[in-house]
């Protein structure tokens, strides 16, 4: 019966913790499955901790069974409780000091410890989604061979060599010739990101001379150019012209500041058109539709000229056929055409394998901290049962003997109490010594 209870208590401790932690991690396993064993880093750490606890459990159990002494059982309990603490909450107090810096390094400061700590499930989804988005983009621009099904790529994920190459090599271009070039010429990207995109900041971003590494390749098979004029009732798939094969599929590219944020900017003209005289409006709209493609094309060429912004920004006009209010000018970044994500997302994706390893640790961390209390409590309970087992066979002779020894030593001591007049002794102390000695004399 006692053995059964002990096993039950044991299971409620660490094994239950493992169960809870693995259950919480399922999401992460699913999202990061293509990243291999790194996704399981957390569980591997947990397993190692469990082995340490298990060994302690077995050793103390065997020792206590063999010796049948209460003292050994007691020592075993202390050891088990200490190991339980160290390998649950204890080590983590130290790891918590180191982890924020590791995370900071892995994400170039774009993901903070406190953001993931309790938010690991959502973060895993976000990071898993990045890979999916990336693959879809590169499938649409035929950077990934379209004779293979999209599903195959999605399934293979990071294990696919071409996907892996595109993620890392193309990010190097985005990082070095994009973000790095912008941030090395001052605070402008930061200001734009911090809701301080003023005209001077924009001018700086567009016209600052930047250091560009022209030798960096960019792996892109086809150019995928958005149409100059699109309609609000169009399928977003049709926003683009057919893909055109590039002369050199590894030629370097340049980046505009819009590519860092990765999302299009829209300047609405709807309000202006609504207020317009209907006749004039029709005239303006027909002018836009006939002259638009050519004019917008020229404007794109101007912007992309090295003397101007030096990087493509796909200007376009969106016409509101369903709702005139939707009419406006669109400034499209080149991210979608080129099959990259916005800078931050792409930076995460670039170190996603590491990130998944770090994220996988968070559910483990949470349960080790919380369930650590239960593991300790169970260890104490197991220890108590062992002591009880020992006590029954043991007749608690050891301790009793110890006690008698000290008592006897005391008994033979004689005092004359003259030392109690010491003025340094407080009334409490005097009273205590007196009472104690009196008791010994009378015994």
């Amino acid at each position, binding site marked *: 019966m006692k053995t059964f209870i002990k096993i039950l208590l044991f299971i409620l401790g660490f094994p239950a913790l493992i169960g809870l932690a693995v259950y919480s991690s399922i999401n992460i396993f699913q999202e990061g499955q293509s990243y291999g064993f790194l996704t399981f880093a957390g569980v591997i750490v947990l397993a190692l901790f469990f082995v340490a606890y298990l060994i302690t459990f077995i050793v103390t159990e065997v020792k206590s069974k063999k010796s049948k002494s209460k003292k050994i059982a007691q020592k075993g309990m202390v050891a088990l409780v200490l190991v339980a603490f160290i390998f649950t909450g204890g080590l983590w107090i130290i790891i918590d000091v180191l982890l924020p810096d590791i995370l900071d390094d892995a994400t170039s400061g774009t993901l903070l410890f406190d953001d993931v700590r309790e938010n690991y499930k959502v973060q895993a989804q976000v990071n898993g989604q990045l890979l999916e988005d990336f693959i879809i983009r590169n499938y649409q621009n035929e950077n990934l061979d379209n004779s293979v099904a999209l599903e195959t790529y999605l399934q293979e994920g990071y294990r696919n060599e071409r996907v892996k190459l595109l993620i890392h090599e193309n990010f190097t271009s985005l990082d070095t010739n994009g973000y790095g070039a912008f*941030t*090395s*010429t*001052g*605070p*402008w990207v*930061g*200001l734009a990101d*911090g*809701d*301080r*995109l*003023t*005209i*001077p*900041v*924009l*001018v*700086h971003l567009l*016209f*600052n*001379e930047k250091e560009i590494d022209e030798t960096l390749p960019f792996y892109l098979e086809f150019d995928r150019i958005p149409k100059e004029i699109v309609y609000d009732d169009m399928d977003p798939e049709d926003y683009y012209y057919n893909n055109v094969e590039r002369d050199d599929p590894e030629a370097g590219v340049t980046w505009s500041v819009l590519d860092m944020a990765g999302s299009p900017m829209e300047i609405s003209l709807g309000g202006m058109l609504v207020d317009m005289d209907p006749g004039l409006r029709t005239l303006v709209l027909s*002018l836009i539709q*006939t*002259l638009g493609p*050519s*004019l917008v*094309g*020229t404007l794109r*060429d*101007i912007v992309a*000229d090295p*003397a*101007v912004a030096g990087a493509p920004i796909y200007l376009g006009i969106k016409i509101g056929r369903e709702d005139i209010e939707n009419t406006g000018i669109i400034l499209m970044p080149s991210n979608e055409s080129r099959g990259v994500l916005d800078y931050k997302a792409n930076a995460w994706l670039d170190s996603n394998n590491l990130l998944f390893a770090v994220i996988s640790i968070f559910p483990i961390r949470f349960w080790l901290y919380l369930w650590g209390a239960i593991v300790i409590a169970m260890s104490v309970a197991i220890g108590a049962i062992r002591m009880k087992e020992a006590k029954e066979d043991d007749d608690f002779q050891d301790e009793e003997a110890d006690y008698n020894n000290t008592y006897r030593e005391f008994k033979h001591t004689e005092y004359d109490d003259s030392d109690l007049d010491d*003025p340094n002794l407080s*009334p*409490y102390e005097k*009273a205590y010594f*007196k*009472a104690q000695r*009196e*008791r010994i004399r*009378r015994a």
Partner: protein
Amino acid sequence: MLKLRRNITAARIFQFLFYALGFPLIVHLVLVSSGPLIDNGLVNSGKEQLIGTINYYTGPAVMGIYYGLALWAIFIVGQLLLKLFVRKNRWTRTAIAVILAAIIIVGPVLYIDLLKKPEYDALQASFAERNIEVEDWGKSASKFGEFTEDNQADIDSFMRTYNIQKFKGKNYSDTNADGSLSIENEEDAAWYSPNGMYADGYVFSFKQANKVLKDYYTNKAAYEADGENIEIELQQALEELESNPYSDWSRYKRGDAESSFSMEDFSYITDSDEYKVAYGEDGIARKYYLTEERLAQVLSVLGRELGENESIGSLLPAISSFIDLGGLDIMSLLNEDLSLEVLVDVVNGLGLGGTLRQLVDPTSTETEIDEAFVFGLLANYSSYQSPMTYPVFYFIEDEGLRDFAYANYYAKIHGAKIGSVLVGTGENPKVGHITMDASGMPAPTQEEVLATIDQFEAFETISQKFYPLFALRESLVKFGAFATLCVFAAYALTIYIDKKYAKLTLKAGVK
């Protein structure tokens, strides 16, 4: 026997409780009263310090707490001395300890009321001379917490108006555009470039925004009082510096010897070449704004690309039916040779020069524009003050005018760059968050700004000096008698416990 023990245990609990209700309670109450002071940026100019893993705070806001702790410490030292010197008579010891506690509590209050109040009154009078209202001693002493919270609300509103993100300022990058490093000055709550100006990515702290506004408006008001317009004076001073080949500014640009400057103790930031390095041919600073060459390149591309576009040709007749182009052949302009010169000629040819001039400066009587006019306009949007050179206003002799010139630059140009405009321009001036998609807040008037700054200054001076004392004083006054009583109770209980112990001793053997 058991009852006796229970009595002793109960007495011990009460002994501890009464001790805690003495000085520890006072310190705790000072801590509570200091809460608003700690939360207020103007009082709490200090910062968190770290010794190992223990935080402690410095700065005026927490001084009240430290004073309270000091009083407690003095009492503890007194207690230890008493124990050493008054050994026998326990009631004498109690009496002296209670008297000591009373003195420690009453003394500081008397000190504050008798010696600090005249200081306060003098300060209040000096602010009154400047027409700045400061509350009376009595009101401040009792309502300092409320005043501090009100002031914090004013700070928040000021920061919202001018789009100041962080009380202590924020720097968006450690390096300026040209790669030079910016250096933080914690006391000023500012980041500076090597030329002593704000770093490129520096968004004002509360303190610096106040300083800029003060420099701007007090100097402006001072000139107005003399019937002068400081902006005209500044313009003249700058023109003089530019046109006089022997002015310090001209010497600086040429890189003359330091000894030849009329300014005392002038020294170059790096060396006499610095201006040429930044703004000379291929100058570093020239990479970061739309220079004449850059503009020429852009216009040339524009001319070429538009000229090559066939639709433009078909669009032009449509345009000329709306606008009278005066027989101007636009297509002939659209080629690689398109330049600012050509555009200026076109505008003047169409007779639009005067209109444009008046758009910028309603008092202008000129009828034509020139290239300088266009660059003047552009400078508002694209200019770059090199962090490695002094600006022209560094060489203005008159101190007031120089301060104004710097403030004018920071408030309007630096502010416009970082999206925290401090002084608005035009007919309906706006300040604060002016970006591509935000249009700022209506600018407060000169009088309003000056009054606000004065209030902040008065509050900062008074609150840092006196509010921590008030926090201490309040607790001492309210809980002084109670605390003294509790000290007595703690001592009395000690005697009681000792007596009970004596009884315990006698009966110890009885079982």
